[in-house]
């Protein structure tokens, strides 16, 4: 198997060729990510993945791969802030719904009202929600049909607020603010009505058989509307929305999203040439050259705002793990055992298709940590061993033990008893395969200095449900670390949800006053540098261990062309087929 040289795949060919009218694009969806919902604000109990991302209903601001709002595809122009940042004025651009009605300020107010109704019913109903924060304490008013004014109780860092507005899907108030089919249009500003509307719309969305036929869902503001949906697999087809006036030639006659159950199945389809656009599992990175020969473009890059943490459970008391892991030197020693360059090079893990990453903000971020590319705790087993010895541990391949209990600087630390061993469980996701491989490598490295890491393989879903301290506190002592794959942040990649003491995504009960302060500053302060400071601090304190970030491998037929950034967007699942076109007539 040839080793992959990633530099060859880091560029996207410029838009080229002559556009041919028509053609159907078939997009392969990542296994396990098939949608089951259509209403853009799915309740938690639907476990919803929404059809077509934002191709049918656009968000107020639409982000590019780099997280910045795209001026062309957003529904409004850049917001303007008052001096105290608490009043935000947003001007709507001229856009219209598929039924001809304009997209208005009222629609934005309606959308926010529905979002509020959703989180009022359950905090779990919006993934970006932290109780007490957006949309709580945010009042939206429409001034005329094209100006929205947001009044905030508490000022947010403008970059952070904009990242949230990038998640605000705008839905049609004129057609959807009803509580029964064919019922009267209600005043959505009344929270009781909003709640009834929300209940009605989620109810309508629970009947999958009617997704493509329910007239409600045909009112869209994005470039496409739903043509058909296959409930058993989650495959679906989109038809162009003729009323869409955004950028792009909009020449494709149809866009098919096809569900798959395994990476192998997708690979087979590339071989057969039946998929136009999709991703390639990294276990096939050695096959890139083959695919190119078969007429595919391949682009590989790490996804922005992504980090790959080995999540630590600070509350696990099994074997005194909580006391041991509370020691910063211990986490540093463990990070020294993570061989990021080795994993990247290894054929068995990334086969070259990954990059070193030591920060929560991800690679190439606009808010980089101040240590730049240099690892704070690079792979160095010797250093790890030295750290342990220096803190009173007797390093022994057969089992390292604490020799000097106590809280002195050369002692093991508070609460660690004499003779204490370091032994814990690492739950490793059963797919993709590189996750298991890197965890094994880590465990094997730890064993060499007498740390016993038991790797157990679990399905992703199982871990999502059972291995989170906020959600399943009863299971706290079952896992000490878990590797569930990436942590993907919003375009303003603060670790607010993940590492804030009471963040809703704080899976491992990490709690640090300095970190809390830094996060507070990056969320609510106005300092553009606050986020850099936050990520620097986190990278040094190690709330998690950092693993390399794999490159996403994007594959598309070379007969398909379009602006390079529309392909780059695929790294973050941002699809823009309306800007794509075929350069050859399709069969």
């Amino acid at each position, binding site marked *: 198997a040839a080793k992959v040289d990633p530099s060859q795949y880091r560029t996207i060919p410029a838009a080229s060729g002559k556009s041919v009218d028509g053609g159907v694009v078939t997009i392969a969806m990542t296994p396990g990510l098939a949608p089951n919902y259509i209403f853009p604000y799915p309740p938690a109990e639907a476990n919803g993945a929404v059809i077509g991302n934002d191709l049918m209903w656009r968000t107020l601001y639409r982000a590019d791969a780099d997280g910045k709002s795209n001026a062309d595809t957003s529904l409004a122009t850049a917001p303007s802030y008052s001096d105290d940042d608490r009043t935000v004025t947003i001007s709507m651009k001229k856009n219209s719904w598929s039924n001809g009605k304009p997209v208005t300020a009222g629609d934005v107010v309606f959308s926010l009202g529905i979002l509020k109704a959703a989180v009022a019913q359950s905090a779990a109903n919006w993934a970006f929600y932290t109780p007490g924060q957006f949309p709580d304490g945010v009042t939206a008013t429409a001034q005329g049909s094209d100006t929205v004014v947001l009044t905030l109780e508490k000022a947010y860092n403008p970059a952070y607020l904009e990242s949230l507005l990038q998640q605000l899907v705008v839905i049609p108030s004129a057609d959807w603010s009803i509580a029964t089919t064919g019922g009267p249009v209600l005043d959505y500003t009344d929270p009781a009505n909003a709640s009834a509307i929300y209940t009605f719309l989620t109810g309508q969305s629970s009947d999958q058989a009617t997704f493509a036929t329910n007239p409600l869902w045909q009112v869209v503001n994005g470039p496409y509307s739903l043509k058909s949906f296959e409930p058993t697999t989650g495959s679906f087809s989109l038809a162009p929305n003729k009323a869409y006036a955004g950028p792009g030639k909009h020449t494709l006659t149809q866009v098919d999203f096809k569900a798959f159950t395994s990476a192998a199945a997708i690979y087979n389809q590339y071989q057969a040439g039946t998929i136009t656009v999709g991703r390639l599992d990294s276990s096939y990175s050695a096959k890139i050259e083959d695919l190119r020969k078969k007429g595919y473009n391949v682009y590989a890059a790490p996804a922005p705002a992504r980090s790959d943490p080995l999540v630590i459970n600070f509350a696990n008391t099994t074997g005194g793990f909580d006391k041991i892991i509370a020691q910063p030197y211990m986490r540093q020693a463990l990070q020294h055992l993570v061989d990021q360059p080795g994993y990247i090079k290894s054929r068995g893990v990334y086969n070259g298709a990954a990059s070193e990453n030591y920060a929560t903000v991800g690679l190439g971020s606009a808010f980089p940590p101040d240590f730049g590319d240099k690892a704070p705790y690079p792979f160095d087993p010797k250093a790890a061993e030295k750290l342990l010895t220096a803190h009173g541990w007797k390093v022994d391949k057969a089992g390292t033990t604490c020799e000097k209990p106590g809280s002195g600087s050369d002692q093991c630390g508070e609460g660690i008893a004499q003779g204490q061993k370091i032994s814990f469980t690492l739950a*490793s996701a059963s797919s993709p395969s590189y996750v298991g491989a890197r965890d094994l490598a880590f465990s094997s490295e730890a064993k060499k200095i007498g740390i016993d890491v038991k790797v157990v393989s679990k399905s992703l879903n199982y871990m999502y449900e059972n291995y989170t301290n906020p959600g399943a506190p009863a299971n706290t002592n079952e896992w000490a670390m878990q590797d569930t794959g990436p942590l993907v942040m919003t375009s303003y990649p603060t670790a607010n949800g993940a590492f804030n003491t009471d963040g809703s995504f704080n899976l491992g009960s990490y709690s640090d006053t300095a970190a809390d302060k830094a996060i507070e500053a990056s969320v609510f302060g106005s300092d553009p540098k606050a986020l850099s400071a936050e990520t620097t601090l986190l990278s040094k304190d190690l709330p998690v261990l950092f693993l390399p970030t794999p490159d996403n491998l994007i594959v598309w037929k070379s007969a398909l062309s379009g602006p390079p950034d529309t392909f780059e967007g695929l790294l973050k699942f941002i699809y823009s087929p309306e800007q794509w076109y075929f350069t050859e007539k399709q069969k």
Partner: protein
Amino acid sequence: MTTAHPEMSEKTDVIVQTATAARPLAAGAVLRALRRSPMAVAGASMLVLLVLFSFAGPLLYPTNQTDVNLLDALLPPGEGYPLGTDPNGFDVLGRLMLGGQVSLEIGLLAAVFATTLGTVYGAVAGLAGGVVDGIMMRFVDVLLAIPFLFFVLIIAARFTATPLTLSLVIGGFSWLVSARLIRGEVLSLRVREFVQAARLMGARDRRIIFTHLIPNTFGVIIVNLTFQVADAILVIAALGFLGFGLSYPVTDWGSQLSSGVVYITAGNWWLIYPAGLCIVLVVLGLNLLGDALRDVLDRRR
């Protein structure tokens, strides 16, 4: 998958039950008869070969199966690695030996567990007869009707697989077939005249069970055990393929095979075919031996 063996499966006892007990089993005579059966010789040689390979192999060909070797991952067969390396840089040949130990152990443990449980349950039901037998066998019907693989998958998804739990789970479901088999055997033995003769002489149940019933079902039990081992190994393989196998540091042929399957299109054949061959050989060996054994025992009826 589990109940599908052409002849061992429980249907055998349902349909073509010719459950008369075997004639004496002077072990020597059986061994002599087996030695004359080409099937038995082939089966036994495969098994001996694989057992030697798995348990004695590591002595002749020691490899490091604990330390992940990132640099040497996924090497094709060549110098230093006669069968290449796996994604973690483990020597595949050495890993096959390790996996063989675990596979054989699980298979045997599961089969022993299933056979013991099944024998006791079947014997009790067969001896009790009447309503007790009816209830006990309906319970077996119920469990048999629930697709085994689904059961195991649901459980395996929930609990981490270790060799011990895996054997218990597999054994915990495959005893049903043995139970039916043994019950049928006991039922037919119970009315056999030599058992009645013993009763006539005043023998108690205990004596009848231990001196007449058990020795006479022994052959059936041994044959059943052989098939159970084979089936258990196949089940582990299927579980592994569906993603519910064992994980580092232990491994078994099924898990090896299934983790290799990811690489089938990537051309890393050495991750699949050797492990596949091992499974095929061990199951084939066990089935050949079991069938030969049954033939020999049948012939002495």
